[in-house]
């Protein structure tokens, strides 16, 4: 039953310790920004709680790095609650984080829409309310690959999570109150759509083998961020054909105004190098302009990943002046940093 760690292409000591050891490394590298509360397995902003500032926390299974721990710091998250790889954290983590960051102005829980995340955050929010902390929760569900219907658990929360954490983090840092910050998370979620594709699966350390088998030369369309298979499999075509599918899926659901300014987020799933991500960005930029949209901000890189999966996702966020201003607001975290 012991997993042969040495049969994985991974740097590990013990699959059961990988999350904890990685968090310890994150904290050692960024002691100026954050600290690692080992007992509660949470990453907390160094200067939390900030009196009078609305706090933001998020969390979810690990394996999506830099999400969420890499986004803790000035202008973004106040705490992150990492579960085991691809497994939601437990309510005790979220409760501890909520208490650690509450500066009296309330705490916003940013929850990716997965049954596990939703249920665990729900139990935590109930406990926090019992302790007299004002908590609001916003569920992110931007993945257009999933139909939002009675027949599914609803759309998954994916790329929009990163954008919501940055933008609402800026709203909180610049003095927004609990309602304002909560609404900002919702606004980003409402105006953003994502679609992802995979060219490989990935190997969770505790399982020791790939979640599914994807032969070379095939592509999974409509994947999430847990190494799970997508909605359909096809022969891998040229990059511009793949991008066509991604752009069409996102735009047909987003229904942005013609001429709208947009933020384009081309995200790598962990194993796809920047060389290819920029090639994708080039194709996306072209197609969005052809569709009458104006990409005025972008983010290209691996920010919400699925371990070492080869793949990419496209998120398009329809901007307005306020969202642009909040996006441009200084941020200083391990993984996103500007103006500071």
């Amino acid at each position, binding site marked *: *039953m012991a997993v042969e760690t040495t049969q994985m292409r991974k740097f590990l000591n013990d699959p059961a310790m990988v999350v904890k050891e990685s968090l310890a490394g994150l904290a050692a590298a960024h002691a100026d920004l954050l600290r690692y509360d080992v007992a509660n397995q949470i990453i907390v902003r160094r200067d939390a709680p900030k009196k009078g500032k609305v706090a933001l926390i998020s969390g979810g299974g690990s394996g999506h790095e830099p999400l969420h721990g890499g986004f803790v710091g000035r202008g973004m998250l106040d705490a992150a609650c990492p579960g085991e790889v691809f497994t939601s954290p437990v309510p005790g983590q979220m409760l501890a984080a909520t208490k650690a960051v509450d500066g009296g102005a309330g705490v916003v829980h940013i929850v990716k829409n997965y*049954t596990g995340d939703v249920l665990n955050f729900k139990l935590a929010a109930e406990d926090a309310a019992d302790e007299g902390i004002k908590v609001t929760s916003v569920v992110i569900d931007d993945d257009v690959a999933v139909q939002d219907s009675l027949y599914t658990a609803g759309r998954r929360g994916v790329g929009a999570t990163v954008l919501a954490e940055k933008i609402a983090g800026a709203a909180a840092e610049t003095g927004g109150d609990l309602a304002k910050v909560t609404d900002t998370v919702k606004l980003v979620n409402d105006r953003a759509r994502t679609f992802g594709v995979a060219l490989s699966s990935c190997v969770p350390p505790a399982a020791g083998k790939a979640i599914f088998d994807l032969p070379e030369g095939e592509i999974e369309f409509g994947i999430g961020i847990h190494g799970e*298979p997508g909605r359909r499999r096809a022969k891998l075509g040229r990059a511009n054909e793949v991008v066509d599918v991604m752009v069409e899926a996102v735009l047909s659901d987003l229904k942005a105004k013609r001429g709208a300014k947009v933020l384009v987020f081309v995200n790598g799933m962990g194993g796809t190098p920047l060389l290819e991500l920029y090639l994708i960005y080039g194709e996306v930029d072209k197609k969005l302009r052809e569709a009458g949209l104006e990409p005025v901000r972008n983010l290209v890189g691996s920010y919400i990943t699925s371990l070492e999966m080869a793949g990419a996702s496209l998120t398009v966020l329809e901007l307005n002046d306020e969202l642009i201003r909040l996006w441009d607001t200084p941020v200083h975290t391990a993984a996103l940093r500007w103006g500071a």
Partner: protein
Amino acid sequence: MGRLTLTLIVEQVMDAATITSWMHGIDTSVRAERDHLVQLDAAIGDGDHGINMVRGFEAVVRALDADTGSPPGRLLVVAGRTLVSTVGGASGPLWGSALRSAGRVLGDEATFDGAQLADLLAAALASVKDLGTASLGDKTMVDALEPAVETLRSKIAAGEPVAQAVDEAATAAEAGMRATIPLQARKGRASYLGERSVGHQDPGATSTALILRALQRAVSSKP
């Protein structure tokens, strides 16, 4: 003969040791089936269900072994809390809340009978459905738990011996588990796959069947 049996049954009472034995039994069987549960979850979920269940029930067993003298209801509440605080994922809060609710049915009573056993499993089911909003046929643990609860309740009501009623409940859970194979998932991660979820057995229903089978063993091993 029927009467003799009946007499024995009425006398069979369950207590804290039954719960402890049940939880140890779950621990043993999710360990044994860990890789199978991982495989099932890898096919239509994210491949961690076996790992989650093992982590959870390892912790439950540890917690119960440290707890001496608590009544059975209290032990179930401790087990539920332990699951909530160690598992994560969808199954942690669902089974965690289920066992907490189950335990509350017994309050501080030192023993319980078949009717109470049916009541506490019914409370567990209600809690899962309340929190997860899944119905029968959604391809979740409910598809194993609900038939088990119904079978147990009706068999006990019909005066069947507890051990036999629980055996039939576990068999019903196993049938419900297999019946998830042709279904399209409508809750949990598997629902993201749409039609591709058809043809696979639900991991949560599978572990639920293991949990019911462990209960049968715990109940039968009583003198």
